[in-house]
């Protein structure tokens, strides 16, 4: 099951030549710089923009040269950059608008469920004009969910918010990601948001889709511009294994071993993501003894890529079923005679937790 998309458009400075198949499971990030055509593409999927395109969702033709299913019949939820709540209705009224139009027997989400998920209980009788930016966006997301969409489209829902509102809303988005059964396409130009929320990634560059694939895997591809500034890193998914309050540590089980991180509040069993910067990973051929580094995982070398800085080399490693990046000097790579397929150990100096 997938979303097949092909768009061909030349309008002013924007030229879109897109042919791609996006997965309809989990969260797919549509990632690219501003002006790369992400929003236009999303509006086309929703049918808000009538472009020369072919759109086919899970085998149902939404649009081609002859057919056009209008937005209201596509069953897509859409969260706009600015919340766009109905100003003539209060929070409850905004949510009711969606609920009343939920198709009968859709088995969609219940009001209480969505309200709880997005923490709106205390806001229900408020006027939308009284809400903060973060609250508005949460209401908008809840409203989109209550129409029980088959596909949820989110157009940079955090970009119009200040840092504090972003921090307030991100945990809700992460929670949505864990509980939502419907596929999400999430437009963003922030690699941080993508690392935290996405399962898949479609990289858009100058109106073309350059690559579609698993987010964690594309992140480690040296040929794709997916670093945080200069810094490349990998994202590993895992589950909280146990806590050790005596050392103020928690252990996260990732495929390939256990990672120690600063003590977490969540209970064991909760899914978490961690980010590991390439410059925080060093390599050793033998299992190190008497080292201060806590996190040492056995790894298999996948490939080596020269960095922009000629002194450095980027090494891709496989840890269990996940990928990790290490940034080492070219000299070390030669001295250790690193080659694809080698078994070695990755020493991880710092692990950043992506979920609160």
């Amino acid at each position, binding site marked *: 099951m997938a979303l097949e998309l092909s768009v061909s458009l030349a309008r002013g400075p924007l030229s879109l030549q897109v042919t791609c198949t996006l997965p309809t499971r989990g969260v797919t990030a549509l990632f690219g710089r501003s002006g790369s055509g992400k929003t236009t593409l999303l509006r086309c999927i929703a049918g*808000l923009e009538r472009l020369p395109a072919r759109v086919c969702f899970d085998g149902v033709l939404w649009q081609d040269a002859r057919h056009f299913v209008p937005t209201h019949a596509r069953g897509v939820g859409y969260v706009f950059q600015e919340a766009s709540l109905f100003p003539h209705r209060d929070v409850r009224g905004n949510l009711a608008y969606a609920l009343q*139009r939920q198709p009968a027997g859709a088995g969609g989400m219940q009001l209480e469920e969505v309200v709880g998920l997005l923490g709106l209980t205390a806001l229900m009788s408020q006027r939308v004009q009284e809400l903060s930016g973060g609250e508005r966006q949460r209401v908008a997301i809840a409203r989109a969910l209550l129409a029980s969409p088959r596909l949820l489209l989110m157009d940079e829902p955090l970009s119009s918010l200040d840092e504090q509102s972003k921090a307030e809303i991100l945990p809700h988005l992460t929670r949505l990601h864990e509980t939502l059964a419907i596929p999400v396409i999430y437009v963003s130009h922030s690699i941080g948001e993508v690392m935290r929320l996405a399962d898949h990634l479609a990289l858009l560059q100058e109106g073309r889709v350059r690559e579609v694939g698993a987010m964690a895997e594309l992140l480690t591809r040296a040929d794709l511009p997916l670093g945080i500034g200069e810094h490349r890193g990998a994202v590993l998914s895992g589950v909280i294994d146990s806590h050790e309050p005596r050392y103020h540590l928690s252990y996260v089980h990732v495929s390939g071993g256990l990672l120690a991180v600063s003590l977490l509040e969540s209970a064991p069993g909760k899914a978490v993501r961690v980010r590991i910067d390439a410059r925080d990973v060093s390599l050793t051929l033998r299992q190190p003894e008497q080292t201060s580094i806590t996190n040492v995982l056995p790894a298999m070398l996948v490939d080596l890529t020269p960095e922009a800085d000629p002194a450095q080399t980027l090494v891709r490693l496989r840890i269990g079923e996940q990928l990790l990046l290490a940034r080492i000097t070219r000299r070390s790579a030669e001295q250790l005679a690193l080659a694809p397929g080698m078994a070695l150990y990755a020493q991880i100096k710092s692990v950043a937790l992506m979920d609160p």
Partner: protein
Amino acid sequence: MSSADLLALAISLRLAALTTVLLILLCTPLAWWLATARSRWRVPVNALVSLPLVLPPTVLGFYLLVFMGPQGPLGRALAAVSLPSPAFSFSGLVIGSMLYSLPFVVQPLRDAFAGVGSRVLEVAATLRASPFDRFVSVALPLASRGFLTAAVLAFAHTLGEFGVVLMIGGNIPGRTQTASIAIFNHTESLDYSSANHLSATLVIIALVLLLAVHAGRRDREVQPWRWN
């Protein structure tokens, strides 16, 4: 007030009410089209609709009379199906008033619909609302202030009009003589007291209408609309 004056006042109020209701019904789709369509006909239609604003009422009344009179195209067409000509009748007054007050209804409605903006309508579409549903559930309530303005303007404007009703109606007491024509008649015959009574009544009606508009606006600002 004499019974003739009361009758004239009743005719004025009936004319204004009927004109207002018919104009709102007619102009809602027209204003929606003017606010949202991307047709090349939009500009000429806009100009045509605004024409009564700049036309002298007597000119409008004159051409309407020619058009609707027994010898005019409409009069003949109606005579062919054994219907009376609308000239010098109440229905003629309604037609004339509607034309004359048309811009006072179309413009506020058009501006109100344009002020609704496309974003909330797009949101409604993604919440499975059909075009008609979006119009009723989003555009109409958000444009409600425009409807109030349009209705009051149409009513007040019709109540006060003179030139068109005189030309088309012909000042027939009990049938087409409106309050404003009755005032003119009293003044002509130097009966200032009767003219004063009718005039003062019109002033009070106008004041009450304006108060209603302002009260309605303050209401909107203080209280949110609650739907469920």
